[in-house]
């Protein structure tokens, strides 16, 4: 279960409910820009908790194929 997490900075404007719902610290809050950010994508196991809490539809998580190390 490997995830690709994308945040749309235009739409992101709530106080970090996604960050506060992530069980894996994949997300963190950028206090200067006041936006959520992806900090540790490899730990995402695609639970969609963040997607469910976002009131602005600003975050998306996609299940993607696992790739061996060294291949992007």
């Amino acid at each position, binding site marked *: *279960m*490997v995830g690709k997490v994308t945040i749309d900075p235009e739409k992101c404007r709530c106080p970090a409910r996604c960050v*506060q719902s992530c*069980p894996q*610290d994949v997300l963190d809050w950028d206090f200067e820009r006041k936006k959520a950010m992806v900090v540790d994508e490899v*730990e995402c*196991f695609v*639970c969609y908790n963040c997607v469910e809490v976002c009131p602005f539809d600003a975050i998306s998580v996609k299940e*993607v194929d*696992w790739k061996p190390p060294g291949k992007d």
Partner: protein
Amino acid sequence: MLERERVRETDVLVIGTGTAGLRAAIEAGRYGVDVTLVEKMEPGRVSNSAYAGGGFRSFRSQGLKAFHTFNDHFKRTIEIGDYLPNQRLAEIFTLEAYPRIVEMEEFGVDLRRPAAPHRGGQRVTLPMTKYARDQGVHVLSNTFITDLLTVGDAVAGAIGFDVFSGDLVVVRAKSTVLATGGAAEIYSRNDTTANVIGEGYEMAYQVGASMIDMEMVMPDPTLLAEPNFPTALFFRQTPVRERGVFRNAAGETYLLKFVKEHKLAAPDATFSTDDRYQLRYGLEPGDIREHESRAMVIEVLEGRGDDGAILFDMTRVPREHWSNEKSKSTVSMLRGFPADERPIHMYPGMICTLGGIRINEDGETDVPGLYAAGEVTGGVHGAGRLGGNALSVCIVFGARAGRSAALRARSIQTPDVDATQVEERKERIREITRRGRSDKGDVKKLTAELKSLMWERVGVVRDGQGLETSLSEIDGIREERLPYLYAENPRQLMRAVELMKMLDAGEMIATAALMRRDSRTCHYRLDHPETDNRNWLKNVLLRKEDGEMRLWTEPVVITRMPPPEA
């Protein structure tokens, strides 16, 4: 940061919105008292409860392998706990689990609903959060509680801060219920949510509460150990998973050794897979996960691992099992990985702590005004936990702690807070925010260091020397690195304070593990590999006395099921 201050006065303060905290808050509310429920994350969404399978065991519930009588469920709970559970607590638990489960319907919980992948427990925690709010429970989210406040001997509330605004939060309370969960996240390999770091142990310890069985930390053998996969993924039972075989680097099924070690009958040739082997001997998958985990770690320690892990081989599983609808979770988990061509690396990881704050039948700790429930407590599970018992324990003792907390609140006045104490607590946290950025004080690096030392030295397989080393390494981090610990924003401040609490929880686990000189279920020492009922059919307890950690042992509370004669 930490400039403005908000003060709230309440009757019952409950900390944590997992199943135990929610149940305690709901119960307290039934007594007509004002209840404040605090959560450092998004309420009801992130906890071991929320990310559990969502199964509750009782001797009448279906689904999990059924135990049809009180005696069956009780007996299995004590056996799996290797005779360390407090039998008085276990009796209450076994009796009350079923009525507590049935009652969940009132909170909007429908256990017949299929559990969502990964966060099956949210079908419990989300409706309960809503129900609690509807009943008038005041919920404070994004609020990280850092310390309990005391007046005289009694707990009088707590202090913390808002992890976004940085405002200080002081809650004055007549009763306080800790339901902050366990501490498996202090291990580098774990499947718990990142917030489960054991702050409740530290907070209770600081005010003088006793801890029991802290050395008992439960592993699961089947966490992925393959680069570019998240570490928290573990394998649920599916037709594909059941037909896979664990092998060491030489291709041997190390389980043969495990069987010999446990003096089980030698498996015949047809038992090529681990799980079918378990089923053959009347065990439910999961019943022996502590032993399996230990066997895996020993394989690796003795040099038969592959890249520090064990290989799980599904290459010979016939195609029809891959296409079976029931295998969907395995197939989707491994998407992109050529599991039909090569084995996948697996290795154990910690899934929960079994010890914790000592409570009595009413959910009271040793400290007046302080109650506790759920994974933060110890006593019911002993040295090992029966699958499905974790969540049932949360509702049984959550309800009991909530009731006791409410009854106390009805009989006393709101205590004043000690202004000097508040100031002193604040100052300790403020200090972190005043320090400049430095490599030495980087909370992410320090946390990673602690987590790997816990896993390496205080993990599934332990020995006296390693445990002693772990304690001096923990001290080393405290003395040499904590003076540099810094935080640039309130959320980082939460992580920094969490690290300080993780160090304390780690010390409690390692110290208790060093004291217990035998092995049973979740605690295995290479230098004391036998279960020694003559000398160690005891609980290890610890608490803070005169600023020092004092340890002692007490005989196990046995009411109806003595251990078999040695």
